[in-house]
């Protein structure tokens, strides 16, 4: 059967695919989006859209997704370390830089994705709902995409195909860019709650010993509803036999005990599991005749697990290469390689830093020291908004300034060690009681020592391979430290 011809076929209609087809359609490019499901559909997600993402959604003209009484602006956060409330304050880095709103939003994905895709269709993209791409073949310099719609199958063709089909990307697999590296994969589970009574716009996240590295979240929505879930690194879950469903159940029980506003929280939907692939694990996202964007291209933040904004940004960046390729009539991997250069310039400065932190945290045996240090960080941020503004952005914010964070953290670390050391020595000399500083410092050293030993004793081969990974992550981050401005804060030219 002769296929329909397009300039570009986008596989997947999530935020990445919708953004890509919007960006191409508005330039008059003949683009088709294939979406396996029929929207609105549920997508396992925290539904948390950071300010940079909101800014992009507004630029695309999807104001409807942002406004109205059904949205609750998020401006504050609580952080629990076990039962201990380490932070309860406004989110210090929501400062409205470069036209970002001063809040984030929880937008259920069923609504968000439908609106974004509708917007693309309105702009001129061809949207094929309930149409599944079955295989991508490259023939005579064009792509043949076999599709199935209901019981009917046929094939479409286009010189370029964009994989926006999520973490199990078919397009990526067809191009041989499959990624199964557990070091960069997070597994998660979420459900909706009701009966939650919290201060307006205050999210809650928590860290517990049974899901390290990882965290849990409760994002409130109007009407006492909330998005609730936990995520943990696949590698650790695998090595230490962590059961996500079990942790999920216990987390809800703990949340009810700890958070007064969640005392009466009830499940309002079935718990669903999901997977994210983080930015660190990629080598390339281009191939002969196509590109990968969004989850298909592993753009998820290695620490927070956010990927909606990253997916949309990667789509905008990729659309430039698509436009250039169509203009030049070049669809080979060499030409398309410019996409990788561009997305790296955009994401590396922030994501490699976050990836480095994530690499350190991969060592489950260091959970005690990491716990001590991060908890102290949150406590300090609670009292010192400027500290929170810079260092805190590494967690949960788009405004990651690696150099500023490192300078600040190291100043803090040196200060900590110096204060601890001076405290201890002068106390010993004077025969008086040492202050807390000395205990903190010794405690950290002890925790570090214990972690190191436990890690070697458990699996020396893994331990040194991990150390090598940390060194590599640090090496890769190095050049990014030289950039003073994070391109993700300024946003993309559209």
């Amino acid at each position, binding site marked *: 059967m002769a296929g329909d011809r397009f300039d570009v076929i986008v596989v997947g209609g999530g935020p990445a695919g919708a953004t890509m087809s919007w960006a191409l359609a508005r330039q008059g490019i003949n683009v088709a989006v294939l979406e396996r499901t029929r929207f609105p559909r549920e997508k396992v997600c925290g539904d948390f859209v950071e300010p940079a993402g909101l800014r992009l959604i507004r630029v695309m003209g999807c104001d409807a997704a942002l406004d109205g009484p059904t949205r609750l602006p998020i401006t504050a956060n609580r952080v629990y*370390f*076990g*039962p*201990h409330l380490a932070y309860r304050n406004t989110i210090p880095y929501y400062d409205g830089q470069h036209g970002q709103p001063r809040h984030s939003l929880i937008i259920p994905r069923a609504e968000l994705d439908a609106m974004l895709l509708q917007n693309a269709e309105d702009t001129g993209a061809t949207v094929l709902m309930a149409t599944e791409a079955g295989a991508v073949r490259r023939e005579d310099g064009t792509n043949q995409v076999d599709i199935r719609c209901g019981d009917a199958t046929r094939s479409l063709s286009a010189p370029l195909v964009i994989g926006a089909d999520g973490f199990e990307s078919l397009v990526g697999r067809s191009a041989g860019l499959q990624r199964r590296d557990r070091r960069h994969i997070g597994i998660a589970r979420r459900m909706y709650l009701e009966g939650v009574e919290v201060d307006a716009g205050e999210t809650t996240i928590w860290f*517990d*010993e049974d899901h390290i590295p990882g965290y849990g979240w409760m994002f409130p929505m109007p009407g006492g509803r909330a998005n609730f879930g936990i995520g943990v690194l696949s590698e650790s879950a695998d*090595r230490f036999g962590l059961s996500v469903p079990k942790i999920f159940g*216990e987390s809800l*029980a*703990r949340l009810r*005990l700890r958070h007064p506003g969640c005392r009466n929280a009830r499940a309002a939907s079935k718990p669903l599991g999901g997977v994210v692939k983080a930015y660190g694990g990629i080598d390339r996202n281009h191939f002969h005749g196509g590109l990968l964007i969004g989850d298909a291209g592993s753009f998820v933040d290695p620490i927070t697990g956010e990927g909606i904004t990253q997916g949309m940004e990667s789509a905008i960046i990729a659309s430039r290469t698509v436009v250039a390729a169509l203009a030049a009539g070049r669809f080979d991997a060499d030409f398309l390689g410019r996409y990788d250069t561009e997305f790296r310039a955009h994401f590396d400065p922030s994501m490699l830093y976050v990836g480095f932190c994530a690499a350190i945290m991969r060592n489950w045996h260091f959970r*005690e020291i990491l*716990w*001590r240090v991060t*908890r102290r960080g949150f406590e300090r941020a609670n009292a010192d908004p400027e500290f929170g503004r810079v260092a805190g952005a590494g967690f949960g914010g788009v405004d990651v300034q690696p150099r500023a964070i490192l300078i600040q953290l190291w100043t803090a670390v040196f200060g900590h060690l110096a204060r601890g050391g001076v405290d*201890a020595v002068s*106390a*010993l000399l004077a*025969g*008086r*009681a*040492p202050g*807390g500083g*000395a*205990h*903190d410092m*010794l*405690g950290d*050293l*002890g925790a570090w*020592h214990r972690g190191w*030993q436990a890690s070697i004793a*458990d*699996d*020396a*081969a*893994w*331990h*040194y*391979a991990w*150390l*090598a*990974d940390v*060194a*590599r992550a*640090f*090496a*890769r981050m*190095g*050049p990014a430290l*030289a950039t003073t401005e994070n391109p993700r804060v300024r946003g993309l030219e559209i």
Partner: protein
Amino acid sequence: MAKARSRKASPAKAASARPEVAIIGGGIAGLSAALRLAQRGFAVTVFEAKPELGGNMSSTTVHGIDHDVYPHMFCDWYANFWTIFEQDLGFARATHFEPQDGVKLLELGAETYLDLRNPSTLATVWENLTSGILSVPEMIVLMFSMLDLAAYPFGGDVTDNLERIDVNGFLYSRGYVTEDVAKVHNYILTLVWSMNSDVTAAKTYQDFLRHFSSFPNEQPLAWLLRGSLRQKIVQPLADKLRDLGVTVHTETMVTALDIIDGRPRLTVEARNGVAAPQPFDNAIIATPAGAMIRLAMGAPGEDPATKIVAVEPRIAQLQHFRDAAIPVVDIYFKKKLAGVPQGQIGLKGSPMMLSVIDISQLWETSSMLRERTALVLAASDAFAIPAVGPEARGFAMIEQLHRWLPIFNPGKHWGDPDSDIEWAMSHFRANDTNRLFIDDVTSWAFRPTAGDPAALPNIFLAGDYCQSSADMATIEAAVQTGLLAAQALQAADARSHGKMRGEPITLAVEQLDGGAKLLAAKLALLPAAYGASAWAALSESLANPGGERPGTENYPLLLPLSYTLDWWKTAYSLALQLAPELKSASLADAGKTTLLKAADLLQDFARRQPGRGDPRPPPSELATTFSAFAGAAMRAAEAALTKAARGKPPAPDAPYKRRWRVKP
């Protein structure tokens, strides 16, 4: 050309005939070369001026008692020596040698001996720290300075000025070294090589330290013979050479060496007079540097045109080489002395730099040694001995020994019957003709490479003064140069005959810890060293306010600065070691490349580690000692702090308890 003509001149020597090789000097270098060449089918003749073979490793036998030039220390790393001893002579090391882990020091007036052990395991490091030779912090500084020097990236180029600094120069360029630490280095050097740290090349000392700084290493530091050098080594080696058909002429001195038609011609003088000059195909000069230079330059009146110096004028520069005599006295007592420990003992602070070894505990017991103690006493500083007759000098040494070890009656003079000493068996030797080559600051650049065939026609040099990987004048250096000369001779012979005679001669290559490992170790220990230095300075200024050395009160304040500088310099050297291409890279790229390299090394290392569930080797001593040490330190600090807090428990800091477990 010259070669072809020479062969025509002696038609008896067809290409297949065995080449005639003369070896001048029957020390261990010459004997090693003779052994290998004879095994490969060369016709070898050894000329030795003295009645006995062995040179500095020889023994004189008086009334049936062997008196070694000095009972040598055989370090464990003497790879080439051990190959000859174990494989060629077929002896078991453990049967003939006694392992030694370090040396003992005896201070004047002290009753107990201090132990300085080779810090090759953490346990011995710990013992060293608490040995009492220096205060603990200075001991840390001492050991660290050894590591520092071992790790120092000298350029390796003889024109490099860094090659020419002496040990003191190096030490005082380190921010953390204290005066007492420098003194101990000086003491070690003088004791072991009879030379002070202000003339020892830092590079040479480094080489020595590198050989010892493989860590962790369970092997002993060194070995001492259970008998005389003659009995255990020189005689068996001579027997082996005889079996291989080597001709050995003792008491035969080579008085002239001429190059005639591109071949060496030897004039020898034996007891029965001077023989007619004798031509050889090849010669190896394996004498000490002084004798080699005399042969190379020729005597007044001889034709300078046929001498080595005409071909290689640089040889004249070697005349400034230095050597030293180390007087030794063997003291046989009438009885057993109680309480003398086994192994080498340094008498700390003795003006003659005395050291003593009790051979009656070491040597296989004979009737002669069963009933008595026999001490070998050596004076590393011969100039401290009064210039009197030989026996009076021996007695002066014995008197000084008696001050440190007042457990015997030395009598009033040499031969005094009213003493505990059996004078008839005792023996003094000034060792004037068995001298120790001195590796002083500038000598390395001048030292010839052993058996360099490019320089001389069919003549090869060997001896501990030649360049070798052992650097310091040791048995291993001598053996190596002998083997190198034999190797070069064999290769030259193969070139001219188109065929290698026998298996190629090879040298045992020692696996030294790479510079990168040492630098990494240094980087890791740097904080401890500077901390210790500050600690030492602090305790000194507390002990004697005002201080001895004016202007040094503020050193502790400057330490952080030199620490920072040292850290970065070391890190930079380490980076260059790991990735030499960095020299031209930008700083950021350099950092990145280094880290990626380091990561690859780690990954490699990881591959060799046991994984989870794999059978695990028992924890190494290193690991257990370290964790015990770190754990103890941590607990001690916590306990001290808690105690200082007078029982007030620390602020609760236990977020990490499993408090969250909820009942289902």
